[in-house]
């Protein structure tokens, strides 16, 4: 790079660094990933292919260390999933997809439309409930989200449902009262299901940049996260910021969204993800 000048080694590192940065891996995580690469170079390894392999192995370890399967409906009845995230990240759509998987496996699913704020949010979830073969619990717009959660769980317990998935309104971590509302929803769940929610999934837009980590941290403070769903990876974005969330917060990525249709959900495959990234 002309601006900072340097040796062949510097150029090679600069190149690897750029590959990571344009994939939204971010400065801190890129540094963390390139440290073993620098070490390898210091030990005389200058083969670009081999150095790239060192880089990929480091990234793979970051993801594998925290890999964990979803909690199972066989262990909890009902299995309670709380889905959270910023506006437009893909929560409602992902819930439709996840519900469809459970129904396909013969499980009964209840969806709680706890987004009582955004225009036609419950109508949107209603369409997904129908497509997936799940039951919907909804109140009218403006109702208390906690009340919807309560009713959905009560119904789940009462009817012996296998899974209850709670959809929440999109919110930005900078809006204090909305983050507190999330904590309240968590408390409502624990009242009826003491060891719940069994999964609290942060849905992250795959096109998102460096705000992802502070976002994840804030949401985690409001309601302890158990995993991440990364959406919109069918686009051109690489989703590199999930490496920061994984390595910094030790949260596993459970699913990725690869489209807008009901089947466009895949369990997270670290190797495939890294192959697409670098």
């Amino acid at each position: 790079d002309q601006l900072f000048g340097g040796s062949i080694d510097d150029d090679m590192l600069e190149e690897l660094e750029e590959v990571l940065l344009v994939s939204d891996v971010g400065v801190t995580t890129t540094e963390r990933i390139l440290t073993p690469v620098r070490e390898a170079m210091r030990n005389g390894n200058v083969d670009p292919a081999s150095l790239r392999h060192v880089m990929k192995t480091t990234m793979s370890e970051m993801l594998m260390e925290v890999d964990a399967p979803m909690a199972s409906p066989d262990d909890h009845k009902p299995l309670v999933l709380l889905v959270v995230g910023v506006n437009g990240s893909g929560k409602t759509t992902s819930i439709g997809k996840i519900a469809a998987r459970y129904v396909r496996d013969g499980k009964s699913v209840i969806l709680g439309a706890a987004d009582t704020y955004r225009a036609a949010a419950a109508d949107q979830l209603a369409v997904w409930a129908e497509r997936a073969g799940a039951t919907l619990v909804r109140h009218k717009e403006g109702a208390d989200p906690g009340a919807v959660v309560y009713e959905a769980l009560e119904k789940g317990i009462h009817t012996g449902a296998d899974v209850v998935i709670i959809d929440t309104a999109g919110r930005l971590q900078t809006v204090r009262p909305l983050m507190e509302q999330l904590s309240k929803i968590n408390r409502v769940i624990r009242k009826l299901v003491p060891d719940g929610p069994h999964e609290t999934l942060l849905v992250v837009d795959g096109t998102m940049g460096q705000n992802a980590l502070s976002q994840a941290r804030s949401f985690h403070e409001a309601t302890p996260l158990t995993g991440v769903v990364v959406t919109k990876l069918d686009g051109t974005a690489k989703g590199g910021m999930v490496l920061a969330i994984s390595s910094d917060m030790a949260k596993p990525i459970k699913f990725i969204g690869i489209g807008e249709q009901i089947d466009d959900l895949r369990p997270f495959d670290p190797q495939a993800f890294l192959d697409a990234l670098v």
Partner: protein
Amino acid sequence: VLSRGFKNATMKLRGQTRLTEENLKPALREVRTSLIQADVDISVIKDFLARVKEKSLGEIVRVKSPTGQMVKVTPEDHFIKACYDEMAEMMGPEDVGLDVDGNPGIIMMVGLQGSGKTTTTGKLAKMLLEQGKKPLLVAADIYRPAAVDQLMVLGRRLDVPVFSIKGMKPVDLSKMAVAQARSVGRDVVIIDTAGRLAIDNALMDELVQIKGTVHPDEVLFVCDAMIGQDAVRTAKEFDRRLDFTGFVLTKLDGDARGGAALSIRQVTGKPVKFLGQGEELDKLEEFRAEGLAQRILG
């Protein structure tokens, strides 16, 4: 208020008597890190740093001191000023306005999934109402579950009509809506389209078709302020296909730095027209370069 990155940059220059290639290097490096964290496109950062370097090595600015004398600015302050000036310059013009003087004026909203098009459609309608206009909204997203319902709710809230015909394709819908607007005296038509990937050829063709059919006065690219390095890839393709007239950056009430504003402006040459500052329909602001420049630089 300088961000840590920017503070670090200027710290490197403290006590220097003048700016040189050598002492600028670490300062530029710090600014680079700060801009990466602000989600500015990597190539745009390179371009920005090259310009700042040139400006910094240029003539040292003199300003009037409190006692009225002309004094040299410190190298540190000269560097800061070079950064802000270059950023504001690259961010482009303010008050570009909205061209809605057609009969009817037509605005087409486009962008990636979930970027805030439908909400911004509502916000623009509210703004136009306050300017004495009579907007008509077109529910041209026939794909997303309850997208039409969503726009209908917004229309009801504002007491603005929403044009929608079940089963009709977006191109025909838009054409009919414009004809309808003319016949009932609505003077601005805002077409809310479905979110789509820039690489989805069929759906991008649909947008090209809509544009070719109704010839909008404005095509607004709506972009989420939290977007990362994908901003340029996406904006470039939308611009190549549609030659949009401007863009809107949404969700700026969050704490994402919004570097996409600089990247998209720089790469497409198109102006930032509006900023979305919240979910409510009154949360739309006209673009102001200084505020956004400060936010991006930190």
